[in-house]
């Protein structure tokens, strides 16, 4: 029969169901935070001329630390970025969860694969700090 019958720990179906719910909760939470930030932004700046987006000039809100600080003081754009950060963190959480699930199944080859994916994700999020080029 298939692999699943020889595995210990939670079944693949169970793992996938939990992951599915995790993703849904992440998306709903981030959408709500973005919406809250958006409403605050429109209430405060709604009548202002709209931001120039026809030429690329890097934004100031570029680091997780800075975003958290802005969001904590309930600045609207900071809140929006916090929601977006939550959204980006959702798939990362999914991968972390998968590491644990494969470990429970004693599937060490897949623990290794998943850790590889996780390290690429963390590298992407934090490499700016390592090279010193990212704002802090």
């Amino acid at each position, binding site marked *: 029969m298939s692999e699943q019958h020889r595995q210990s720990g939670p079944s693949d179906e169970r793992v996938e169901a939990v992951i599915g719910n995790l993703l849904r909760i992440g998306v709903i939470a981030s959408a709500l935070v973005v919406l809250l930030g958006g409403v605050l932004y429109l209430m405060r700046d709604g009548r202002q001329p709209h931001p120039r987006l026809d030429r690329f000039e890097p934004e100031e809100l570029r680091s997780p630390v800075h975003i958290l600080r802005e969001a904590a003081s309930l600045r609207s754009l900071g809140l929006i970025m916090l929601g977006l950060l939550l959204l980006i963190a959702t798939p990362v959480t*999914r991968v972390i969860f998968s590491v644990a699930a494969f470990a429970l199944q004693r599937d060490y080859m897949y623990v290794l694969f998943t850790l590889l994916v996780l390290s690429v994700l963390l590298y992407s999020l934090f490499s700016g700090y390592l090279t010193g080029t990212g704002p802090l």
Partner: protein
Amino acid sequence: MNVLEFTGLIAVGALAAGFLGALTGLGGGVVIVPLLVLLGVDIHYAIGASLVSVIATSSGAAASYVKEGYSNIRIGMFLEIATTLGALTGAYLVKIIKPEALSIIFGFVLLMSAYLSFRQRPRQHGTEKPDRLATRLRLDSSYPTPEGRLSYHVHRVPLGFVLMYIAGCLSGLLGIGSGALKVLAMDQAMRIPFKVSTTTSNFMIGVTAAATAGVYLHNGFINPALTMPVMLGVLAGSLLGAQVLMFAQTRVLRRVFSVVILALALQMIYKGFTGRL
């Protein structure tokens, strides 16, 4: 135009893009980028906003796909090694490639994606012999059919891996999910059943996009004022599209929308060549 009107306009456009993306199976990303460029938004901001909406739609849809029991997390996780590395490569290339060239590449990728997804037919999958590498990687599994669970064997793993790296590259370069190429790699190259390919592809898109998002964030591509209406609009539009898909006659809809897709692709190529970005 003030902030309120601008945000409303973008939100309506994003809603339409998400709807169109869900109905055509192309995803919201490939539709929202040309739309934003058409509205005069710099392509870097456009792909940044699109990428974020890709994570939202992929993660939002995953929960309902999971219930059906088609997706294969081992195939997904193994191939995500390739897509995330590709995404990093693509995200770094954005800084080097000129906006005009980006626009042209985008146009051609959009044409290719549209062609791939309209051409795709579920492949008849017979009783094939197991592949040694796939067996060692424990990629083989089974999926539900009306006649009970049907097991399948995965083939040509190295080819699939390379195609996934390319798909990841395009995703990182253009801020799209590149689902069409992911499905091609799994369904055609690796001979994975169509339903398993599409659902597993959706599962992988979020993680691939997250690998790009970190680099985009540092580069300042993610503008909150623009991304807010784009993310919320595309998410709502794609959820709506998924509902309509369940009971609508999609063949006619697809034909109508393929004209829209074609126009958007040509617009990107034209803007790239004329330098009107």
